[in-house]
């Protein structure tokens, strides 16, 4: 957590600086099939955090020596555009991007039916167009819709949001200011039914009880996202 000090009160009478209640998510907007060339694609807004994800595949695996004979390989690229953040981000993957790509890939490995795609690759490309906290969860939510849009077989959609802690209170879905000045951040990805945690990271300080609360909020958030994901896919195929 940034832990930057701030004079702005983050929580006043149960309301957050952007007017939300502690268990309220920022406005969600999801659209499927936003790109022409990709096999599947999606655009997701969560407040001021915006991501575009694209999926290609199943396609021939390169390099050949890395293919797996009896199942497919997921590849994930996560990239923040240089102008998506306050200080320009240098292009190219940094260590944070590579870690996020890894945990995102592992999240999807729990739902994509890779056995159906022997010797193949499925490529997920996540682009953060605008960042205001929660980029990994927004990117993951977008990638899940893009996978479905591409017709990739999955046991379930994945939905992802973060809980956090500000002024000793657990809240759902930190915005940028809360992320910079907060006490903990817990990005979580869940399958649609909210039972399986496919991604979980945490930094900051939380008691076991707070962590429990954080996960409960995340279940609510992910359910809301799941509904929006399904709606977007439905609109796409009407």
């Amino acid at each position: 957590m940034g832990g930057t000090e701030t004079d702005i009160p983050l929580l006043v009478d149960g309301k957050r600086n952007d007017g939300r209640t502690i268990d309220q998510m920022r406005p969600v907007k999801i659209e499927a099939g936003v790109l022409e060339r990709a096999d599947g694609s999606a655009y997701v807004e969560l407040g001021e955090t915006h991501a575009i994800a694209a999926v290609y595949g199943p396609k021939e695996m390169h390099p050949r020596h890395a293919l797996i004979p009896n199942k497919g390989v997921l590849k994930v690229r996560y990239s923040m555009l240089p102008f998506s953040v306050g200080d320009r981000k240098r292009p190219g993957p940094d260590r944070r991007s590579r870690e996020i790509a890894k945990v995102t890939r592992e999240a999807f490995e729990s739902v994509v039916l890779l056995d159906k795609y022997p010797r193949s690759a499925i490529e997920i490309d996540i682009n953060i167009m605008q960042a205001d906290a929660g980029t990994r969860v927004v990117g993951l939510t977008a990638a899940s819709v893009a996978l479905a849009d591409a017709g990739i077989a999955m046991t379930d959609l994945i939905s992802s949001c973060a809980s956090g802690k500000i002024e000793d209170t657990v809240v759902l879905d930190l915005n940028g200011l809360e992320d910079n000045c907060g006490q903990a951040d817990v990005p979580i990805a869940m399958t649609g039914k909210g039972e399986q945690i496919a991604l979980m990271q945490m930094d900051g300080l939380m008691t076991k009880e707070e962590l429990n609360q954080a996960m409960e909020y995340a279940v609510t958030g992910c359910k809301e996202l799941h509904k929006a994901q399904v709606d977007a896919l439905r609109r796409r195929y009407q």
Partner: protein
Amino acid sequence: MSVQIIPTLAKKATRALIKSGKRSDGRAFDQMRPVKITVGDYKRAEGSATCWLGKTMVAAGIKIGVGTPYPDSPNVGVLSSNAELVPAADPQFQAGPPKEEAIELARVVDRGIRESKCIELEKLCITPGEETRMVYIDSYVMDNDGNYMDAASIAAITALHNTVIEDFGPLPITKKPIANTFIKVGSDILLDPCLEEEYVADARLTISVEENNNVCAMQKAGSGSWTKDEVLKCVDLAITRAAETRKKVEDALAAFGKEPAPAQPSAGKM
């Protein structure tokens, strides 16, 4: 490399259609696809825009930083251009360090803007020889159906005109250079090629034109060649089409309410 994976049959059909004077989307050879421009799309950027040429989409964002001027021009701001062919945009685009196509894109976008001298870079210097504002142009090809070069050029110049620098004001910029890309297929010359037309192109020529109808940058690419007369014919058409496209940029900026007034003289003083 992309040429290899397009079935020969499809390429033959495209060539035959062109030879008969037609394009698959019904356009005339000297006609552009629909140009759509949105402004201010990416709010963390100091300026931004998106340009669609048909289905091709490029996002451009401007970031302002602070750095050291070049030793040989100590009182001039620094302009830096970067472009990426995002894997999302095309199955041929691979992750990894920029390939020569992305480098060429960045450099051609840069040249059109730099050589038109549209940005008053001297106004961006803070302390001569020590500190200056840096203008970073990042063009991201998000969806590729051909001619990302012109889409990137249009997105970038629109984003620059949309740029407001904190504690300074609007970016001091005067002109709107516009890139116009032609391909040659056999003896035919086509403006604004879509992807299937690029696959059968013998050569490419990009011509950037500024307000006074001066050419400010050119770039020939591809394995074929051009005659002098073909080049001059393209220049003529580029001048005409650039004026039309420039109007669309202005309309988009006006719609955003941000066709900025000329930078105030006082702005440069700080």
